[in-house]
Structure formats: structure tokens, C-alpha cells
């Protein structure tokens, strides 16, 4: 059975788990995915663990509350950009768009592992700027549902000593069900460093 089959086969289990827990906790994984000891180096698409040690796991309602609160979090979106197929015909309309949480900073694929050292340094540099050097500033990291990128990004920040890391595993999909989205353009500094 391929990955897609697994996805489908587990749908029932997911539904059951969601019903039993009545959404008390977000991102109930249909399989018990353990936290890897370090960054996850497998494919980004896949089931993620229910936890991220050193970080808080949050749902969309909590993220909305944080945004509306007095100490607004730094929102970091690490979703990958859409890849234009190499052989996509000239003249055919290609117009990727990235809806996300309004006010988020988009650092595409910053949750890749491994990440080239200079890119990882840029990631930490951007987060330092965005948090004003305050390691206790609330940060929300996210990408898509079932995406390891945000888990890795959160892990990096926890390991770096950030103390208010919030991981939002349902990501853009979990957000847009009930909240406004805004189409994001890539963070200019990140884009400049990583190229098109």
C-alpha cells in the first residue's frame, strides 16, 4: 500500500479520534508518530507527532486569540513555494498564490532539513530581527497540515533558546476554515538569499 493508500485507510481512525477527543487537542495524529530526537530529515509531507518538546502546540482559535491579544506573536510561515514544472508550456498561465495568516512572514522551506548553514543562519537572523532579540517573544510557526517543515522550524527555535515557541500543525488549512487569509509574498531578505 502506497502513502496515498495509507492516508485514505487512516481517515476513519482520524475521524474517530477527533470525535472522541472533541477537539480538546489539535492535530491528533492517526498514528502515533514519535518525536524524532533531532530535526526530521524525511519527506516534508506526512503525519507529524502530536507534540514538539519545548514548544506549545496550538490550534487556530488559540492563534487567533494570540493575534488579538496584547503581546502579538511573530507569525512564521515556512510553507514551500509552488514549484513550476520544468516542462510547463510557455504561454500557459502560471500564477501561484500563497494564502496565509494575515501578517505572517513567509520564509519558504525554512523547515527543510538539512538546511545549508548560511540559510539556517539567515533563518535565525530573520527571527532575531522579527522578535527584536527577545527570546521570550511569542512565535507561531506553521506551514500546511501534515507538513514537517513547521515542526522542524519550531524545533530549531526551541533548540536556539526561544522560550515561547508555538507550533500550529494545522497550518494554513486549519486557519482558513474560520479566519481571513491574506496572499503573502515571500520575505524579501529570504528571497534574495535563496533565489527564485
Amino acid at each position, binding site marked *: *500500500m*502506497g*502513502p*496515498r*493508500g*495509507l*492516508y*485514505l485507510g487512516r*481517515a476513519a481512525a*482520524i*475521524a474517530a*479520534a*477527533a*470525535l472522541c*477527543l*472533541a*477537539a480538546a487537542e*489539535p*492535530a*491528533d495524529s*492517526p498514528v502515533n508518530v514519535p518525536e524524532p530526537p533531532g530535526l526530521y530529515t524525511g*519527506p516534508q*509531507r506526512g503525519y507529524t507527532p502530536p507534540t514538539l518538546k519545548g514548544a506549545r502546540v496550538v*490550534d*487556530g*482559535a488559540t492563534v*487567533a486569540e494570540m493575534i488579538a491579544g496584547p503581546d502579538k506573536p511573530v507569525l512564521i510561515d515556512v510553507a514551500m513555494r*509552488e*514549484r*513550476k*514544472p*520544468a*516542462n*510547463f*508550456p510557455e504561454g*500557459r*498561465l*502560471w*500564477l*501561484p*498564490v500563497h*494564502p496565509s495568516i*494575515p501578517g505572517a512572514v513567509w520564509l519558504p522551506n525554512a523547515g527543510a532539513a538539512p538546511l545549508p548553514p548560511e540559510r539556517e543562519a539567515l533563518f535565525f537572523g530573520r527571527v532575531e530581527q522579527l522578535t527584536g532579540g527577545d527570546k521570550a517573544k511569542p512565535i507561531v510557526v506553521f506551514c*500546511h*497540515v*501534515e507538513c514537517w517543515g513547521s515542526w522542524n522550524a519550531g524545533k530549531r527555535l526551541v533548540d536556539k533558546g526561544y522560550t515561547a515557541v508555538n507550533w500550529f500543525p*494545522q497550518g*494554513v*488549512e*486549519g486557519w*482558513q*476554515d*474560520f*479566519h*481571513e*487569509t*491574506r*496572499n503573502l509574498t515571500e520575505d524579501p531578505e529570504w528571497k534574495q538569499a535563496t533565489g527564485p
Partner: protein
Amino acid sequence: MRPTLAFALAFSAATLFAPLAQAAGASDTEQERNARWQEIAKSIFGDKTIESTDTLVKIEAPKRAEDAALVPITLSMPDRDKIKSVSLIIDDNPAPYAAKFEFGPAADTRELKLRVRVNNYTDMHAVVETPDGKLYEAKQFVKASGGCSAPMGMSDEEAMKGMGDMRMKFAEAQPGKPVEATLMIRHPNFSGMQMNQVTRDFTPARYIDKVTVSAGDETVFTMTGDISIASNPVINFGFKPDGKALKVAASDNQGGRWSHSFNAPSPTN
């Protein structure tokens, strides 16, 4: 399967207790969607005016798709004489122009169904062109996500097995009435955005770019397709049988060419 049923349910429950102050469909997001549609419409149809319609074309789609890589769409165009072509645009897909169907004399346009990939929560537009060259649009919002890059769950070789094979199913024919037919083409319709989960290479785009169906000498339709059509394309359409075979010619963007002929049900009296 993105978003999963899991958090669909989880969120439905969660929001019962959450303030709904920021319910979807409010101003800014809507404005952004409209602006995007204007941009897409301009690049496809130029400066031509597009009027909205409730009657010439309707789009039916699940409000929330179970599988974003396989979203069933029904286009209803009850007034055959007023329809020259229909374009399906999935606004927030990276390649938004999913398909165009140009109808011939043997077409019955009342119901056209196909299955598409949906990458983001998006508006979908169906734009029909009337014989006098005017454009009319209908819109439908669909919740699905990740359909363009969803892996097929099998090796590329396996996915390409039997590529170009076709099947046709006919609904029961009634004398003097159009017949409903379902065309199935075996083809992975690789989007070029799908990563092989084992090798982590991207499978190059390979998709059906043209399908022509004709009844005898008369065209039913010609479809121009794109990477937003789901793998193993299934097209449900109507045609006017004249007792001759139904011929299908399909091609893909990598030079694949296939044709098949099917015995259409004859209108017995």
C-alpha cells in the same frame, strides 16, 4: 486528503465555542479573491466583458472536497444553442486555467462532469462563450487543499501502466434523445508538482492536453486540458447519437497520441 477529515471535525467542534467574529467570506479576503479573478480573466479573455449568469452555466462542486486531488465538478448548461464553449478556471491553483471545452454539432451540453485537482481554498469560475462571442461567468467556492502536489501513492512506472487505455460507458439510449456517456482515460496526468516520496525527485509534468470526441463526422467536443485535471481523467458528457461510432482522440504534452472508437448505442424505435 488535505485537509483531513480529522481537523475538519476538530475545527467544527472547536468553533462552536469560539467567537465567530472573523468568519470567512468577509471583506478583505473577498476583495483579494476578486482582484485575482480580474487578473486571471484579463490574461485569458483580454479586455472582453464577462457578465455573470445564473442560467447559462452553473457549477456544482462539493463545498468541502474529500480528496483535493480528485474533486468532482459538474457544469450544467441547459441551453445548448447558446453555448459555444466553456472554460473552467480554478482561481487559486498555480495553473488556474484547468480546461476549455469547445462544443461541436453533436454535443449535448446539459451536463458535463470532470474531476480536478484543487490546490487551495478557491473560487472556481466557469465562463461560457455564446455563439455571438459574448462571455458569461458563474462562480463556486471550494474548500480543498494540496491537490496539485498530492503524490499518487505508487511508482511513476506503475502510474503510467496502460497509459492511453480508454473505456466508455453509455447510459441507456432513448429514441430521439441525447445519450449520456462517460469517458475514462488511463493516464497519470502528472502535474509536475508531485514529489516522488522515495527519490524526492519531482515527476515531470505529463498531462492530457487535448481530447476530441466525435460522433460519426460531427464533433461532440474538443477539450484543452492542463495539470489541474485529476489523474486518470473521467469526463461525463452528453451527445446526439446518429448510429455511428463515437471516436476519441487524445494527446498529451509529451507527444503521446491515442485514439479509440466505441460503438454508441443506436436509437432503436
